[in-house]
């Protein structure tokens, strides 16, 4: 039975950040951490948190995973990691990311229209 993307909202913070980071193409674990840290320097992601979240997202069908055969693996990255598993968005993942973005956008617009943030663009 097809999953209703809206039933997965709202997303947890890290889940959404992973979806956004994978928007440009597949990445391995360390690259994901770097991408998220670049977007938000205050955000420290540890491997346990990352991989538990990735496993949950795989189970929900938001991501797919590809094993890189050893012979085909690129040389170690500057971080010294030899990547072996790459993650990418599924169509469901793209849809959910878009829906979550829309939801957050609506929230931001609403809050800016209230007296609380009046005067801020």
């Amino acid at each position, binding site marked *: 039975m097809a999953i209703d993307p809206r039933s997965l909202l709202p997303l947890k913070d890290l889940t959404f950040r992973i979806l956004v980071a994978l928007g440009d193409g597949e990445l*391995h*674990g*360390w690259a994901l*951490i770097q991408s998220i840290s670049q977007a938000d320097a205050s955000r*420290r992601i*540890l*491997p*346990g*948190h*990352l*991989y*538990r979240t990735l*496993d949950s997202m795989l189970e929900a069908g938001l991501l797919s995973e590809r094993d890189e055969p050893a012979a085909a693996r690129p040389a170690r*990255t500057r*971080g*010294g*990691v*030899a990547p*072996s*598993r790459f993650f990418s968005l599924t169509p469901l993942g793209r849809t959910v990311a878009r829906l979550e973005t829309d939801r957050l956008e609506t929230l931001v617009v609403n809050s800016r229209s209230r007296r609380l943030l009046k005067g801020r663009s």
Partner: protein
Amino acid sequence: MISRLGDAMYRLLLRLFPRAMRQHRGEDMAACFAAQRRAARRRPDSLIALWCHAILDAIKHGLIPRMATHVGSWAPRLGLASGVQALRHASAGLKRSPGYVVAVVFSFAFGVGANTSVFAIADRVMYRPLPFADASSLLTVGITNPTGVSWTLFSPDLSAWTERATTIRTVALFSHYQAAVSSDTGSEYAEGAFASSSLASMFEHAPRLGRWFDARDMSPGAPRVIVVSDALWRRHFSAASDLGSATLRLNGDPVAVVGVMPAGAVLPLQAQFWLPMRSVQGQLIARPANGATLPAIQAELTQLSPSVSNLKRQGRNAEVMVAPLREQLFGAAKPAVGLLFGVTALLLLIACANVANLSLARALDRRREWSVRAALGASRRSLAALVLAENVTLIGAGGILGVIAAYSVSRVFTALAPLEVALPNVALFDWRSVFFAAVAIALSVLIASLGPAFAVTHADLQPTLSRSNGRLGRGPESSRLRRVMVAGQVAIALVLMIGCGLLVRSVIRLTRVDLGFDPRGVATTSVHLTNARYRQGPRTLQLLNGLTERASAIPGVEGVAVGPLPLVGGLGTGLREGFNALIMRPTRGVGNERPPMVWVKYVNPGYFDVFRIRLRAGRGFLPTDDETTPAVALLNGRAAAVLFPESNAMGQTLVGVPKNVSQGKPITVVGITEDVRQRDVTLAAEPEIFVPVAQQELTMSGVTVSVLTSGDPQSLTVALRQILRELDPELATTRLGTMTGVVDASLARYRFMLQLLGASAVLALVLAMVGLYAIVSYLVGQRTREIGIRIALGARRSNVMILIGREATSLIAIGTALGTGLAIAFGGSLRSFLFEVGPHDPMVFAAAPVFLAAAGVLAAFVPVRRAIRVDPKVALQAE
């Protein structure tokens, strides 16, 4: 190397994650974290923060979900759903205090890990049944004699007991033996034993291949057979599944393998092979008859023993000693193991007190939170659960890490610690150790949580809501409790510091002992001459001469010595490594006093130069002292005093020397040497006679060769082994090393205890000072308003310093008094590890409290400084 250590530590942390996740994602997680470490390396504080977060990550995303999975299935039945919720809340709260988390987790990882490791060893030494049937009833029998207890018994005694004793029902014999074992695969020098046919059935173990010995194998002229251990079978025959016609060479002579035994199945524990016992001489193992008690067995065997009767006729006290087998195997290790256990238990107690103290402070600081929760309907029980959940999380995580570490290092620990606890093929770490660890963790949680849980469940929360900052004023019960815990920690820290100080003094004295020789620059090796070729003296002398000549030609060698090493000899019976024991009567007849044991060493002329043993009088041996010249001897100072108490020993003739030493010739004393310690650094020198090896008909079972070099002696050991291999490939060498290594090994036991106690004392002191700092800080915080008022009313800053300092001083004083009392009461337990230092040494008892007080001043310095800088205006407005 640091990177590899970091990887290893992170992989240890990964064990907190569920197994499925570890197996599937472990490598990727380790690789990611390694990259994060590299990125953080530029700033040490960043690296520390990274590790703190990694630990929290492992707890939050590994341990808690793992525990929740186990608890989740039966939690609802036991009403533990709120427990899981409490754990989740605890992890969220702890995230804000990474430093606290790391301190607690590592304290308990060390405390639980150390206790579990030591328990595993103590369990083996003291409690776990030996791997033999009805092991508790097995006895060993020995005879006390002038030099101690002899566990090797001889034919007349064994025959008398076997034929006439009614208090023992079964006996078996074995005696230690060492031999060169070789096959087409290679050769080695192995520990083995001669054994009676009843030995295997005594322990109710059968060979897993082939058979044990029977009566036919014991008779003279029977074909030579051998039973080997699993390990030796694996090394020489690749663990073949049947015996076929397997043969080995034992000291060059062929012998048929008839059985393969699991190692540790029968005594001796380290034996790699067993041979049929053809002479009735060895160590006796017995099973008592039904209803026979130890005193009854001892009395009967004493009465029946011809050896004891002989000794008594000579006017010496002697009797048969019967001891449980476990006592004889592990008795020597008990004091060390007991001390280790005591020290690690004290450390765990200190860690518990520390966490209790800090946890209580955290609980008190959150009184307002508890009050709000209570007002919103939370029961006191659920509030206590929140407090408990934090400690369960931290102590549980630390404890689990400690258990994993204990499992990983248990074998290494046994190898490093100079304890005789070998029990091959029996796992050191098993379910008993895990159970002990679980109990230790549970007790730690209980001890650490009682105070804070009590504070939350019994405090009056209502008034807190009406206060502006939610903090209490001075809470008498909780404050007193914290003071008691800090004083207790200080006391324990002092006990460990005193123990450490006593050991430091002992080790310093040991290193200053005049050994009588100089170990520097000496390489040494022992060779076992058990081959039939060396039963003829001339062959042995030929070997020694060849060895001396070739060793002298090695570049850098300044001298070659043949003869037993100092510090290791003197305990063998018969001829072993050129060392024999004589009981001699003083020449001038000094009454009927007990004749002393005098050791005889066969040495070459270079012996005294290589070991730099000083001569008091006369000369050393010359190359011309051989079988064609008059027999000569050197005495050490002790021997000269004992054998010639009323005259100068120089030029005297030795009387009463057995023929195998004198060769029928009178022996003249030509020199007196300084005393050299033969057996142990702690034991004074005993009387020694040196005779030239060239004047002996040598039928020694072994010989030790040492060379002196101006370079690195370690580099010569390989050359020595090569020379021996060229002279006779069948010879097996043992104890290849340096004399400095021998001296270090003799001090190893003391050094190990010092290192352990030293590390424990430092850790205990740090924990105690953290506790002191915490409570003084807390008191300053509580009394800020009071201090502000006092200063506003004219009190000087020095008065404030005295006011707060008095608190810290009283805690240190109480802790010092308590600790001193404990050290006096239990100091005796350290006695066997001390050398020329009493367990109540005044210098140590005076110095330790001074160090403790100095550390206390440092710990209290920051909060006291904060107190004297209180601004009265700010303090009065703060409420």
